[in-house]
């Protein structure tokens, strides 16, 4: 029973650790499917986490925090869009700029406003998104396996967790079953074809970039006011880049993206679990090694195991009419 509990704990923690990755990965999916590469996912998550933490602390409401997080992230997304869509700037450079601005701005504004060395004030429970208990979860907690899965793994997460998973089929449906999705994919593959078919390439790309901003906003908000009780400096810790890796890994498809994020979340959960625990035969594994596993895995898998990942054909290329 004890080992079952351990597994359940690791899986529950996998889900929690997956959520920011999943939001960010889906965010990147919208943007990159439209032909706008975005390595600024990390930065947008960070400003969103800061804005959400600050707004929730000041306004005493998690919903206000969410609004601030999403709004700030969308503003940064539009900045990226303005640079690379309207002015045809380099998408990588602009993304790097977003990351740098986010890193400096969140820390600086945090220290200036709150005087806590870059953190936002500790949030009270009513200022956060708290875990929800699914109906009947307590009643079935004693049932072995199935009951445990329901009560310990599926139940007990905040509303944002369930929303993140709901976004997966929703994103699939939007991309492959709606006019919006068809046009979004078209401008990412062959913008000239979309243009001649009467679709506004820049309009679609802005729409995609805004979708990306909204989802990054959710990712950041989750970090600071659901998973933690406040913003702390650099709290995204590279999750935006892991999400990008997951996106490539999933070949820009929503459902595989979820599995990729779950895999990276799982590795993270295992790494945390194994901290200081001696394993039979190998002893205590260095924490650093465990933390490096997602990156090593990404490089190894991208280097050959998953075959060639073909990004959207017009990705990274500003749309200019010929001549």
């Amino acid at each position: 029973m004890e080992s079952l509990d351990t597994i359940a704990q690791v899986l529950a923690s996998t889900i929690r650790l997956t959520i920011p990755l999943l939001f960010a990965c889906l965010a990147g999916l919208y943007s990159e499917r439209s032909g706008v590469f975005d390595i600024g996912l990390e930065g947008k998550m960070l400003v969103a986490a800061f804005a959400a933490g600050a707004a929730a602390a000041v306004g005493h409401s998690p919903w206000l925090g969410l609004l601030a997080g999403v709004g700030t992230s969308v503003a940064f997304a539009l900045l990226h869009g303005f640079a690379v869509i309207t002015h045809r700037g380099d998408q990588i450079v602009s993304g790097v700029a977003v990351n740098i601005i986010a890193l400096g701005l969140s820390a600086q504004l945090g220290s200036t406003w709150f005087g806590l060395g870059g953190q936002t004030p500790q949030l009270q429970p009513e200022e956060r998104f708290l875990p929800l208990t699914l109906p009947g979860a307590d009643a079935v907690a004693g049932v072995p396996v199935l009951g445990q899965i329901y009560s310990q793994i599926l139940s007990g997460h905040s509303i944002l967790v369930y929303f993140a998973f709901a976004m997966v089929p929703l994103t699939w449906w939007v991309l492959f079953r709606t006019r919006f999705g068809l046009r979004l994919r078209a401008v990412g593959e062959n913008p000239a074809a979309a243009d001649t078919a009467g679709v506004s390439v820049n309009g679609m790309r802005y729409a995609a970039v805004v979708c990306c901003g909204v989802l990054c906003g959710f990712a950041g908000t989750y970090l600071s006011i659901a998973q933690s009780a406040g913003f702390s400096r650099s709290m995204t810790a590279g999750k935006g880049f892991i999400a990008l890796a997951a996106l490539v890994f999933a070949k820009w498809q929503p459902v595989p993206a979820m599995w990729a994020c779950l895999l990276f979340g799982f590795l993270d959960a295992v790494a945390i679990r194994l901290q200081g625990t001696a394993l039979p035969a190998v002893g205590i594994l260095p924490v650093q090694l465990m933390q490096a596993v997602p990156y090593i895995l990404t490089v190894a898998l991208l280097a050959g195991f998953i075959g060639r990942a073909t990004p959207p054909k017009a990705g990274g290329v500003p749309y200019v009419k010929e001549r």
Partner: protein
Amino acid sequence: MSVSGPAAAIDLKGIDKRFGAVHANKAVSLAIAPGTIHGIVGENGAGKSTLMSILYGFYQADAGEIFINGAPRKIVRPSDAIAAGIGMVHQHFMLVEPFTVLENVVLGAEGGARLIGGLTKARTELQRLGDAYNMSVPLDTPVSELAVGVQQRVEILKALYRGADVLILDEPTGVLTPSEADHLFRVLDQLRHQGKTVIFITHKLREIMAITDNVSVMRRGEIVGTVATKTTTPQALAELMVGRTVRLKVDKAARAPGPVVLDVRELSATDNRGTTRLRDVSFTIREGEIVGIAGVAGNGQSELLEVLAGIRRRASGEILLHGQPLDPAHTDPAKLREARCAHVPEDRHRMGLVMSFSACENTILGYQDDPRFTPHGLLNRTAIAADTSGKMIAFDVRPGNPQLRASLFSGGNQQKLVLAREFERDPTLLIVGQPTRGVDIGAIEFIHKRLIAMRDAGKAVLLVSVELDEIRALADRVLVMFDGRIVGERGPDASEQDLGLLMAGIAS
């Protein structure tokens, strides 16, 4: 031309367009009668495509008006043109490759936020259109998996699905086999019978004569003449296009070929994805002989050129140059150039020139180790410029400024720069890919003469071209490639139909 009776389907008045210093359209006026096929011919850069892109809303004219069926229309973007009943089939197809045919057709005309309704409607409508015009296409196949001829049908259906009454076709036959082109012409004829108006842009005079009712000739941004096709001849049109007398036929004296220069035996090669593109190709070329490789683009010609130029490794087979086998491990472009084997690549933008380099830097490309140009590893700029000037005079490259960037020359002059670089080295074997692609008639005439001169000087020439007319005019022997194989050999006097069947892989 004055149009009597009903209002012109399309009436362009005083269309003017500049791109920086280039005056692409100079106050062009053009009226097109409804229910006719109207040809527009002109050399590259004459302004045909610009004019049509303005009509389709892709560019906006600086001045001028557009009337459709007698009423003035503002066309600011493609959706305006579509709403006005204009459809366009671009030279480079405007298709989203991973999308299915159905998805491509509905893109931009989905008829609702959810796709399902639009897709169902399109399926029915496409089946009807396909039957009506004898253009069946597989609706659920990704476009990337279709042959170019079928992709073109998708483009036409796309326009018809949007209710186009006027269909603009920009160089539609460049990518087609002769039989596919015939099929296209039958479709266009049917469209005309149904009262549709077709604007047909081409530089092939034969096609103008075969299919159009009226023809307008463009030169340097102006329409220099519009006539009923029945009343004109190819020769008259060519003269209008170029503005002087041109010879459409190449003079070529008979010449007995000498000893074998290049002997290719059972050559096979794959492309970058590992697909076999060249299968057991064998042929020889002798001194003083032009061997032409005909075929629809993408049947292994590019890979053949690349292997022979030392750019691509062969999978198997032997290549003998002057009877000496070339070791595949040590065959690279530099070694081949040392062996006096010159290569004019198919795509001058991608391989022939560095567009941002000056003409003189480009003319030493591949020969940069020549001590005349780079003594002790340093560029001797005077010697290089003098050498380039000489080549520019010999090949009539204009403007004759060795310091000018390659991208600032016209297509024909860029091509002449590449030819000058390779021809002036006195090679024994010349490997030439698409020598006149995107080149104007005047320069074509010049390039053809030069190729014949090389042959007469005893060089062995391999000519790969998708222009059947070019192959027939120049080659002493014609090899036809299909699906990576040489499927037949003919003399230059073989009929077009005969070669066309070979190119389509039907006959052998």
